[in-house]
């Protein structure tokens, strides 16, 4: 398939892999964090790590929109659907995220809640138009990639004067999360998370450009390579990171030049700014409260803010004690370090959010990579 096969070419991948083997110094370790779940997914699905030398290790980052959603936020959505009788529209991968009282959106649906999976916020808007007698709420999650469409929908609803459409806004911001990881005690003091550089976001960077990462590269002396989500993008970016480390550089480089430029999509940014404002603080799963890391709907659009319309109050809910999602999201632990990985916590019965979305570190390892943990005898 054109525009796809070129980025999955096995021969090219092998050559880049050989180049990494040749250039990575055998006397040192390289640890790179891929920020986005999209990268985690590509690495696992295509077996990218098979092509890397043993001393180049990839650490999964927190950039899986579903994984960083705290239990309390899912609880809000469930409450809306069960107690306020709204038609709750959501992206598919939030459906199975475990919430309080053994519930999830899927289980709430089985109890009679009206929960609809949509591919786009535009579908939610269309449902609101088609059901004027029902309150329709869009459960808006995701990083800067999914934020502009939500802004478009709210602006559109305002123009049409829709009285039955609102948004439960849980949009979060990438740069704040990266800063939080770089400022975390594990990285700063204990050195338990060795981080030599970042694979920078693909789709997020299309919106925000690569300028916002310059501060990390310079301030924290960490190389960043903005990378597309195809496996060749990822392996090429790993080579670029190895080179930066070897040459003692800490810059922002852009591997994803076919889509990302310095300033990003300024129109989308202006629209986001028109509809959203910064929340002083927001709870992330795994990272805890992170200041200035998420967006709320501006007062001018308050009637489209589900938290405002239904008088919702956020309540923090602690994670299951045995669950290591927090440490895994911060890169401190690997999925297999978690005691309940693959035994109590499986994709069928996820305890932690990292096991839910296929982008989650645990689900990706369980689904695509667990054969590496177990010696397999091949005929």
């Amino acid at each position, binding site marked *: 398939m054109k525009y796809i096969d070129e980025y999955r070419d096995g021969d090219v991948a092998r050559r880049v892999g050989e180049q990494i083997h040749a250039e990575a110094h055998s006397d040192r370790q390289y640890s790179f964090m891929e920020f986005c779940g999209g990268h985690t997914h590509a690495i696992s699905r295509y077996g990218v790590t098979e092509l890397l030398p043993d001393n180049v290790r990839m650490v999964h980052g927190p950039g899986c929109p579903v994984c960083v959603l705290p239990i309390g936020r899912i609880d809000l959505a469930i409450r809306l659907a069960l107690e306020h009788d709204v038609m709750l529209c959501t992206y598919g991968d939030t459906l199975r995220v475990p919430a309080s009282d053994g519930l999830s959106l899927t289980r709430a649906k089985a109890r009679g809640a009206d929960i609809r999976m949509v591919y786009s916020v535009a579908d939610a808007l269309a449902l609101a138009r088609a059901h004027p007698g029902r309150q329709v709420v869009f459960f808006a999650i995701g990083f800067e990639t999914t934020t502009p469409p939500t802004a478009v929908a709210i602006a559109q609803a305002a123009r049409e004067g829709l009285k039955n459409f609102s948004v439960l806004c849980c949009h979060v911001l990438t740069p704040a999360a990266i800063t939080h990881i770089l400022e975390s005690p594990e990285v700063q003091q204990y050195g338990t998370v060795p981080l030599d550089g970042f694979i920078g976001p693909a789709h997020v960077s299309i919106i925000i450009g690569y300028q916002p990462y310059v501060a990390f590269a310079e301030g924290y002396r960490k190389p960043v390579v903005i990378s597309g989500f195809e496996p060749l993008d990822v392996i090429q970016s790993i080579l670029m990171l190895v080179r930066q480390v070897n040459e003692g550089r800490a810059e922002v480089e852009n591997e994803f030049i076919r889509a990302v430029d310095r300033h990003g999509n300024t129109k989308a940014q202006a629209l986001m700014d028109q509809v959203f404002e910064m929340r002083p603080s927001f709870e992330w799963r795994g990272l805890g409260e992170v200041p200035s890391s998420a967006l709320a709907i501006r007062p001018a659009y308050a009637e489209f803010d589900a938290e405002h319309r239904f008088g919702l109050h956020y309540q923090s809910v602690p994670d299951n004690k045995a669950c290591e999602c927090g440490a895994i999201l911060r890169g401190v632990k690997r999925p297999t370090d978690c005691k309940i990985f693959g035994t109590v916590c499986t994709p069928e019965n996820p305890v932690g959010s990292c096991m839910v979305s296929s982008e989650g570190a645990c689900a990706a390892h369980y689904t695509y990579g667990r054969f590496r943990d177990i010696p397999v*005898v*091949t005929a």
Partner: protein
Amino acid sequence: MNARDTTPPGNTDMSDPKRHYVRPLDVKHGRVDMGHGAGGRAAAQLIRDIFLAAFDNPYLRQGDDGALLPAPGPGRLVMATDAHVVSPLFFPGGDLGCLSVHGTINDVAMMGARPLYLSASFILEEGFALAELQRIVQSMARAAQEAGVPIVTGDTKVVEKGKGDGLFISTTGVGVVPDGVALSGAHARVGDAVLLSGTIGDHGVAVLSQRESLSFGTSVVSDTAALHTLVDALLRAAPGALRTLRDPTRGGLATTLNEIAQQSSVGIRLDEAQIPIAAQVEAACELLGLDPLYVANEGKLIAICAPEAADTLLATLRAHPLGARAARIGTVTQDAHHFVQMNTRFGGKRVVDWLSGEQLPRIC
């Protein structure tokens, strides 16, 4: 359609004067109502004008509680049943009707059997348009006729509006396996070849393309088809070399291979580059964030066979119109954990796992 109180179609002579007093069924504008399920005159009329008219055959015409069938000759009986609940009811390349015939014929055929008879039961939702019902029933009749497998008995029930999704069809098939043929998901052996009869994902993508929230333009059509003639060709080409036949329907190729690995206590190693997939299906899956390995097929089979017969059987598949794009996609391996693994086109390795829950699109 145990239509004791109805006249078989074709019998419209003067010995049945009451027919002139019966208001004809308004198929064009009419809808299913509770009366069609009450067992009275309306039910009899529905059965006669829609079902008997389409499926007509001597067994059905007996009009008794069950169909009286000749006992088949030597061999063993195979029986399989399948409920069909597809939404939407009509999709490019087929509809619920032909799907319900093909699905059950294929289940019988995967046992190495020659399918002989089908039964069909219908759960109709109050308010369902008779015109749509007729279209679906006629499509079933066509599929059964083309396959040479008559629908010999059936049943109809009506549920109140809101308690069904328009129409559910459940079919059961009976067939005969010749002596000497013993196919099972438990028979795969280490070293066996894994063959696939054609491209994956066509049915699932064709259905998805019609969902109201998602309609997208595509020329992908469902692969729904009865595979018993293909099975017959395989059994003739290399009797004894076939171990397992299975049609990868719900859950797709990945799920079916995991079932076989589990049942046979083996592993399976796939070669991604060999798995046939239509460019349009691949593109749609990219767009929707789906993995085609998990997308449903309705006219494909997986054949696991002794390695020395693989070339012969592959040639047999390719010589049949339903197997033109057949390929050898992998090998059965020894693996205590029964993993299905895949060498990716990219040059890496991965597990091809069971599907967990529904396949949900990713947003990132």
